[in-house]
């Protein structure tokens, strides 16, 4: 399946904006992603292994945090994951 990488993290995927990984579910796909591109791990996960609070990961159009099975959600070759850090602020 395809995983879309946001601009700031492409330096860790050799400049690729989209990478292809195997994985029967979301968790496996992310595991393969951070195995293939090890430097990504620290940018996606905390030291305790939790997804950083500002990192959003969408399976197609759905935030994986709100999927009933979350990272155990099954995936197919035609599914796409998108990593999208949050954008917020204010004075």
């Amino acid at each position: 399946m395809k995983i879309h990488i946001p601009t700031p993290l492409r330096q860790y995927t050799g400049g690729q904006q989209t990478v292809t990984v195997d994985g029967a579910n979301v968790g496996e796909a992310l595991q393969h992603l951070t195995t293939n591109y090890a430097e990504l791990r620290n940018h996606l996960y905390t030291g305790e292994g939790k997804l950083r609070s500002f990192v959003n990961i969408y399976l197609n159009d759905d935030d994986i945090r709100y999927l009933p099975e979350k990272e155990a959600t099954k995936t197919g070759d035609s599914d796409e994951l998108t990593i999208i850090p949050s954008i917020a602020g204010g004075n």
Partner: protein
Amino acid sequence: MLKLSREDYESLRAHGEETYPHECCGVLLGKSGVDGNHVHKIVRAGNTRTDRAHDRYNIAPEELIRVQRQARGLGLDIVGFYHSHPDHPAQWSQTDFEEAHWVGCSYIITKIDKGKATVTNSFLLSGTSEEDKKFLDEPVDVLAGQVDSAKEKAQV
């Protein structure tokens, strides 16, 4: 240095005037060059912080994903963001810093003074991680025509 067209520059400033006294926000699409980010298109976004839109902004991830798809379709990247500070200096705030996670991207801030856009500044989020990130003042080059990275590269 951040390069963008006069049209886009005026458009993002006008956006802040239109949403005053609330903060506006949007996305900068373009290319990152050796001399900085080049903006080819700006995309207006909605501010989801309706609870305190006068001093906070947030772009829904779903909207960001749509914009990122749009960028891919145009052969462009997300190179930055913009927002306004109603009746507040065009300087990044502690909240802006804490909520900035797109290293290498430009963050444009426009002061809207009593409904009128005044100062516009840009800050480059520099660093390698959350732990060492920092905002750097980034000069803004407003071009008369459209920004064309390919042409600029060819001319070098």
